[in-house]
């Protein structure tokens, strides 16, 4: 082998090593974040942490019960709004691929997906906070629901589009009306794809802070009324992390661990449901 060829092979090997190194370097920050949050958060979590509300500065202890309950309520209401609209919208898009409305709808979804979350917060403020005279959990839910929509619609649409046309045609040939074909044949066949879309959407908005800043606003006390300001996990983390007090930082670390575990769990669940569904098809 002459030197030229040796040089080229060496160069190729060198770049391969470089690319492998850089590719695996991406994982390092994620692992660092996970390790740090687990280390900082795990000691803070105990029963009191989960059942108490935050204490004023200077007092030891206190928990994040208000944020846990708030997050649960806000995300639940958001899902209640977004799931029906999103799934039906996805069915519409997969059933009417050529209509003009479907074109505009798909375009709107692309736009919606790209909107920065803070802008959705502004819009929800003007739709639901200003006219009704105060911050409310409901307005936060609406903002989150808007963010969930594109994910749910896209997942539903993509899932249903993958189903073979013969399924649909066989059902129509039996004389089933359209709504029953959709509800009894098409949706059940794609249900795991739809569910994974919904879980993905929930995971996406569960950690969103920006749209809640001007809508749910945060609340240091326990509140279950959707018409009042409400605390949520990401809001609590933001407010306490940027505060100068160590007690509050501790609360924020514990809350971060819970939020992170919850979001990653949802994402991993989605991975498994999608995989199972793909094997079935």
């Amino acid at each position, binding site marked *: 082998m002459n030197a030229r060829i040796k040089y080229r092979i060496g160069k190729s090997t060198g770049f391969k090593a470089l690319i492998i190194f850089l590719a695996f370097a991406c994982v390092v920050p994620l692992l660092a974040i996970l390790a740090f949050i687990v280390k900082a958060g795990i000691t803070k979590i105990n029963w009191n942490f989960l059942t108490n509300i935050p204490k004023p500065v200077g007092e030891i202890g206190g928990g994040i019960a208000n944020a846990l309950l708030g997050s649960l309520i806000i995300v639940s209401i958001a899902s209640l709004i977004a799931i029906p609209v999103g799934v039906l919208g996805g069915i519409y898009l997969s059933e009417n691929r050529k209509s003009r409305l*479907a074109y505009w709808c798909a375009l709107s979804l692309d736009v919606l997906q790209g909107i920065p979350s803070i802008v959705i917060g502004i*819009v929800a403020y003007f739709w639901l906070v200003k006219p009704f005279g105060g911050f409310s959990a409901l307005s936060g839910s609406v903002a989150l629901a808007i963010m969930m929509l594109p994910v749910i619609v896209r997942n539903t649409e993509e899932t249903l589009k993958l189903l073979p046309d013969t399924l649909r045609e066989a059902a129509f040939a039996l004389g089933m009306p359209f709504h029953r074909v959709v509800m009894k044949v098409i949706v059940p066949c794609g249900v795991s794809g739809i569910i994974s879309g919904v879980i993905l959407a929930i995971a996406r908005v569960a950690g969103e802070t920006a749209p809640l800043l001007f809508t749910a606003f945060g609340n240091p006390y326990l509140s279950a009324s959707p018409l009042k300001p409400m605390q949520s996990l990401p809001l609590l983390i933001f407010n306490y992390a940027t505060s100068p007090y160590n007690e509050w930082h501790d609360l924020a670390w514990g809350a971060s661990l819970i939020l992170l575990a919850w979001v990653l769990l949802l994402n991993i669940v989605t991975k498994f449901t999608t995989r199972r569904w793909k094997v079935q098809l």
Partner: protein
Amino acid sequence: MDTSVDKTVITRRSNSLRVITSIKTPSFVKTNKRLKRSYRQIRTENAFRRTLVLMGLVIVVLVLGILLTLVVQSIPSIKSLGLGYLWGKTWDPVRDIYGAYPFLLGTLITSFLALLISIPFSFSVAIFLGEYYPKGWLPNLLKNTVELIAAVPSVIYGFWGLAVLVPIVRSFESSSGIQPLGVGIFSSSLILSIMIIPYAASLGRSMIQMVPSPLKEGAYSLGATKWEVIRSVILPYTKSGLFAGVLLSLGRALGETMAVTMVIGNTSLIPKNIFSPGNTMASVIANEFTEADKPVYLSALIELGLVLFLVTVVINMVGKKVISRFTN
């Protein structure tokens, strides 16, 4: 069954849409059990179709509503501040001076610096998963882990950045003789660059996997090494796809709020260098929106939101266009 009566009540306007012409249920339908059932079914079917169309409309109206709200709410600022607002160099709401230039500059610097840092990493992931090792458990693990980077909430990136990254940057700054603040544009770019890796990486991976193998085989048969194939076949072929991935990353970086707000330092001064504190459009909205007490102040912030909206929408649209042209 009397088919002639049937036809007047139930018609087929098109292949797929059956329409009931009369609103009230005719009396003869009520008496005939079979007719009643199919009548009811057609009604439900129509209602279902209408609901579907309604949902499609809701989504379109929602987006138009968002745009309209932003435009309407920023009219006071557009009227009183004019176009010069975007180039105004000072932002001092107390003295009623509004200029968005520091924020535009802050947004541009953080986003492009973040892109610059993240591109080598995201392209490496794309090449590694797309060309070197497309199958196997380790690449699969890498793929899933990189996708998880996008799943971590941005507020947690911000908190981690504040607690871990900012001290590191601060010690670096003090050792190189810059004012050691820690927070600032460089820190937020670092955080952003981690957050946007998955977007360009996953798109680039699928693009690289789509390169036709005859092209690659041709190059191999001419004696090219793996790296030469990547550099002179795969990268030129997937150029536009990789570009689209970078655009999507950029769109994400421009709109990112929380992590940036927490580590950028929040001043309205024009940043002097990449280590000085600043503000981005999104972070200034997050910080000052609830404090804005004057209508013009609020409206000026919303105009920033409108600009952010338009810029990210255009970037995303161009990105999507490039992708669809590439895949077809």
